[in-house]
């Protein structure tokens, strides 16, 4: 029987990681990720998880030690946040380039400067090009489930790529809720340990993480691109299989909510999607045709799904907790680019909110919908990137 626990998302991720039985954990503490690494070190100490926990001296070493562990075929887990993720950047590219199926939790947190420990998504969204599969959880249950599913996708022989499971700092990491804990034997059956084809092997020595000059470099990147796209299909399959085993599915790369007949849809990711869902229900009760599209997977980018769900919508707003200064939100760039490939293109608007932990209230989201509904009603709205609740 699965057990229910009242825990926070950090603890849920730690439990998910424990159930996945990583052989090596290398991590460095940073708020709001710390609870994850505290719990994991507890599990190693009390013997409930047989693994080596490397107390490394920096995030750069956390990812580099993870590379080392994965390079010999050990299942590896790490976790970080914010500045720590940036400090890992070099290693992130190594991990994906080397095709090492490392799983990492990122507690989404703002980036300095201004210095700030609260939640926004500038950290992980700054690493979209790092070659990692990037997943966003909406709640603690999904955070746990994704941590387990991440290994399924990462270690698929056709994928062999690292996966980053992102969850909103504090709003998720420090919020307690009911989480159903899967049974260990079922998790073992879902993600059996498998040999990595690209590992270093003492009996058949290989050289790894090597140089490829101009004559071969492009092909390695093409291969990685194909594998990353493949990961999308694998995630959908993993979600389905997980549902059959554990009774929970999330619907693949995106989750749509009341979008079928919607005039206005907000696209967002992470925990703010839950709040948006409440707003959609409230506005629907008033007869307004609004919907939500939650992106669960930013890489590979669910272009096909986004076009299918949104190309007939009149106005689409992307609500995101990041900004590519001097341009627009990164999620907006991605969504817009996808929609350009559809047969029709909705009017699109970008809402920047929640930076540095600024609260996103239901009223704020309702105002975004208001703008979209005006556009949908034939009243053209300003396409300028809008900073929600700007105080100046």
């Amino acid at each position, binding site marked *: 029987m699965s057990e229910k626990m009242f825990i926070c998302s950090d603890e849920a991720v730690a439990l998910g990681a424990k159930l996945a039985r990583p052989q090596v954990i290398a991590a460095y503490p940073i708020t709001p990720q710390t609870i994850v690494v505290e719990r994991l070190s507890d599990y190693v100490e009390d013997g409930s998880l047989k693994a080596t926990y490397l107390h490394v001296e920096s995030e750069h070493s956390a990812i580099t030690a993870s590379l080392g562990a994965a390079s010999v075929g050990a299942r590896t887990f790490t976790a970080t946040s914010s500045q720590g993720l940036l400090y890992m950047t070099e290693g992130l590219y190594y991990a994906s380039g080397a095709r090492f199926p490392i799983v990492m939790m990122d507690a989404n947190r703002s980036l300095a400067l201004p210095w700030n420990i609260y939640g926004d998504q500038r950290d992980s969204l700054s690493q979209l090009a790092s070659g990692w599969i990037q997943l966003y959880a909406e709640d603690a249950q999904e955070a746990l489930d994704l941590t387990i599913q991440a290994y399924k996708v990462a270690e698929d022989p056709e994928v062999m790529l690292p996966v980053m499971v992102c969850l909103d700092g*504090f*709003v998720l990491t420090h*919020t*307690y*809720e009911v989480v159903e804990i899967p049974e260990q034997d079922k998790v073992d059956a879902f993600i059996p340990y498998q040999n990595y084809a690209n590992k270093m092997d003492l009996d058949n020595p290989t050289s790894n993480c090597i140089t490829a000059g101009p004559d071969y470099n492009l092909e390695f990147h093409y291969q990685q691109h194909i594998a990353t796209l493949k990961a999308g299909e694998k995630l959908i399959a993993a979600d389905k299989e997980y549902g059959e085993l554990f009774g929970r599915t999330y619907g693949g790369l995106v989750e749509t909510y009341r979008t079928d007949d919607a005039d206005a849809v907000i696209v967002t990711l992470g925990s703010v*999607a*839950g*709040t948006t*869902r409440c707003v959609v229900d409230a506005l629907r009760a008033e007869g307004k045709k609004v919907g939500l599209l939650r992106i669960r997977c930013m890489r590979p980018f669910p272009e096909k799904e986004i076009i299918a769900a949104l190309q007939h919508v009149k106005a689409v707003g992307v609500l995101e907790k990041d900004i590519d200064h001097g341009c627009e939100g990164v999620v907006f760039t991605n969504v817009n680019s996808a929609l350009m490939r559809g047969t029709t293109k909705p009017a699109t608007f970008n809402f920047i909110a929640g930076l540095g*932990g600024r609260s996103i209230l239901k009223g704020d989201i309702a105002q975004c919908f208001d703008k979209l509904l005006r556009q949908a009603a034939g009243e053209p709205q300003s396409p300028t990137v809008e900073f929600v609740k700007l105080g100046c």
Partner: protein
Amino acid sequence: MIEVRWHGRGGQGAFTAARLLGQAVAIHEHKYVQAFPSFGPERRGAPVLAFTRIDDKKITDRSEVETCDYVVVLDDTLYGDNVTKGLKDGGILVINTTQDAAAFPKKGDYTVITIDATALALDILGRPITNVPMLAALVAAAGTVNSDSVLKAIDDQLAPRIREKNKALFTAAYDKVKGEL
């Protein structure tokens, strides 16, 4: 949905109270719950907030708590406008104080419950830790949560060496408030 806001100072255990309530209703009454602290670094003595959200259906709202049904104040020196802000009509304000409810003039149509939780805590625990008696006061005043569920939650969550005393403290505070209602 029921929303509870806890006012305390860093180190007083306001968030532990929010979580105990959550554990009680989530695990022992099978409801949906969120419990979360005011986010950020906690510094001993600094005013802190904690929240508990309870509902019969899955709670997807992740926004800040704007209005609440119950407000619990672990230390009456924290009392001020921010304590009564957002407290709904028909709601309950529970304050740890040596004063009467009349000392906290109402700014809306809510009930004020006072209890000298510090004295009870000093008597039973020997330390002025007031989160459990204040949780008891809330449970007694609100009547929406079974006190047995909270006692079980204390068993689940508190370290064995402080469990029994906290359960005794819970019962004492619960009985006191029930007796005065």
